[in-house]
């Protein structure tokens, strides 16, 4: 179920932790932020669609409705960690209004 947590100014140090380790062992603080950011409902949620197996993945957006195709964006990644970081920044901005450079 979606998290009710709201990102606080004290959560900013976790940005750097996420940049270094987008997937794997995380601090309790980053886990709490990720439970919010990764646990959003399907509508408007980012997914990756394999463009070339093991080489390229395209960012897609779920409609959240059965039978509605995934909307494919222009954003393509050749590295899955890079995709995790990109989506993290996008969601962080959505929740805080802050752009991560």
């Amino acid at each position, binding site marked *: *179920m*979606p998290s009710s947590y709201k990102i606080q100014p004290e959560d900013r140090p976790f940005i750097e932790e996420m940049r270094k380790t*987008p*997937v*794997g*062992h*995380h601090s309790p603080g980053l*886990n709490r932020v*990720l*439970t919010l950011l*990764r*646990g*959003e*409902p*399907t509508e408007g*949620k*980012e*997914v*990756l*669609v*394999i463009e070339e*197996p*093991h080489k390229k*993945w395209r960012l*897609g957006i*779920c409609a959240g409705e*059965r*039978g*509605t*195709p*995934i909307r494919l964006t222009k954003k393509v990644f050749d590295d*899955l960690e890079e*995709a*995790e970081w990109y*989506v993290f920044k996008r969601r962080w901005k959505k929740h805080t209004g802050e752009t991560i450079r």
Partner: protein
Amino acid sequence: MLKLTGYSDRIYARPGQTIEFKVNCDGPKTYQADIVRLICGDTNPDGPGFKETLVRTDVSKRYKGRKQVIHAGSRVIIPDSEVFDRLDSFTVQAMIWPTTPDKGEQGLIVRGSPRARAGFGLMIDANGAIALRLADGKCMETVSTGRKLLERHWYFVGATFDAKTRRLSVFQEPLEIFPGVRDGGSARRTVKVRGPGAVRAPLVMAAMPTRIAGDQVFATGHYNGKLDSPRLADRVLDAAEMEALKTGLPASLETAVLAAWDFSLGIGTEQISDISPNRLDGNTLHMPVRGMTGWNWDGETMDWKSDPGQWSAMHFHDDDVYDAAWETDFLLTVPARMKSGLYAARLRAGSHEEYIPFAVSPAPGKEKKIAFLLPTASYMAYANHHVGCTGATELQNGCLAVYSPQDVHLHQYREYGLSPYDTHSDGSGVCYTSRLRPVLNMRPKYQSVLGGFKGSTLWQFNADTHLVDWLEAMKFGYDVITDEELHDRGLEALKPYRTVLTGSHPEYWSPEMWEGLDAWKRRGGRFMYMGGNGFYWKVAFSAETPGIMEIRRCETGIRAWPAEPGEFFNSQDGGYGGLWLRNAHPPQTVGGTGFSAQGFDLSSYYVRKPDSFRPKVSFIFKGVGKNERIGDFGLIGGGAAGLELDRAAPELGTPPNTYVLATSVDHTDVYMLVPEEFLETAPGLGGQECPQVRADMVFFETLNNGAVFSTSSISWCGSLAHNNYRNNVSRITKNVLKRFLDPKPF
């Protein structure tokens, strides 16, 4: 959109038996079909590489392509009968529990000819109210109660029509009344329509026919919800008569009643029985769920077999699919020279490609000493799942959901049907899964959303080709026996083998499969459990409905949906569903370990435990150092201990003579303890804190010189090929298999 999709009528065959292949080729004019032997389905350039070999058969040639589609949605079809000619004045009634009254027009009990534009239909109208539609070929009228039905509440509904006065009345009565909620009501009107007309048409329940072609009824307006005790009479019945019909067929009404269908008869079949003397029997299409609690279920009885009359409802869904019923495009009669193994019909048209996998069992008398038990029951459980579409997936995975082209197709084209990991469009759980449709995620080259972060991201069928590849690379002779064959033949299917190896995730077991394996083990069979979360869910197959598997997700366990109270017993075999753990056969009694945790980001490794240094099991670790990390490498999440993990638990059934050889460590917090392992909520259930989040590698001896070795992790097989098969996961597996083939006692 995938242009080439297909399926076969059989999932296994022995030499001499014939498999029919059914293909949808939507676009290309022709396609090439060939039979290939599958060795490794993993396309990862860091892995052993994709491996298949062409098998020369009569199949190899180009075929003309044709589009074949699936018409999803369950319904009942009662064939046309002269008895229906008595329909002039009439009464139609039923008990219903609608689940999507707002979705638009839905047929309940409909008999009409779309071509003649004549007939009648008791239905839910566009406003969510009960209505009767009547058409005589010239005009059509619909009379509605105008009262919106509530979701998931029982109603007594019906309509009467008097052909003499042309008075039409329709009603809906809620069984439970809430102050201020106006969901019951009736309407009466004199109509111009003369009656349902003399049409030749079947009677359809839970859908509205759009076209009738011979035995086939094409339909729209599929009903979501339960339908119970439908009745049809050839005159206007009064309220007391209709009330009396709710629970049966009184003798006084026998002449008036054309049909009184009782869905509690034939639970587990596709047959529909009419208890009236007219015997207007019929069939279901696309398997509405049976053994569902009816309007009169009292909550005191839980097993439909003890009083079927309380389970006289069927639950229909607009996305039910059983048999896609496609035409056959080509056949393969398995030649005698085709050795047992994993095969597929490979279809190609330009850049489009499809594989339809199947297993070939050995010819009698030609069996090897090793059998790979292909977990086809578990493949069916995951068939065409939409796990990636749920909001929680990314949390469980600890990384973004990655879709394959097949997932994208399934996401959009819902007529390819669901898996028991999904819910229906009305939110109810999917408890039947069929292989008589293209199962797009049971394919070589397919990457799964459940296959861990980075690496090969394989799951189930394609992940299991890592084991096939290893058996080939190590030059072990082996046969492939499917779960379905084990279910069909029991012990006989395994009798020839000294050693049986499972796949990476043999999770779903029917009682027949269980007994077959257990009997083989009792006779001294040596068993290698090569995966995780095995022997977990109890499922049912039935000879009445080949190609279907049933699961009731009751009580506890990692559940995609909960079975409703009173619906814990399978319709197919009448058995109690749910976890084997709750059915007196804990998984720990089979492999020595049982499901304890899952997570889908990074896999980890094992460290040796004191038991591994005891002389009896020294053969397992020959060539493995004392402090070596076991499997800190691999194609599935980067390690041999990952995705789903099992632990040894003496309190749950791990045999007392079990050696715990190694245990996995250092799992991330995405890995969490399974719900059946804790009673109260408390922090500390993740991999960094919870000691039960681990895989235990175990060995124990069984009767008659038998033995069991268990890896207890789904990702184990993904590490076998590392460093050109020279690694400690491969070494341990080989040490065990070689020793297990030696009949000498341990």
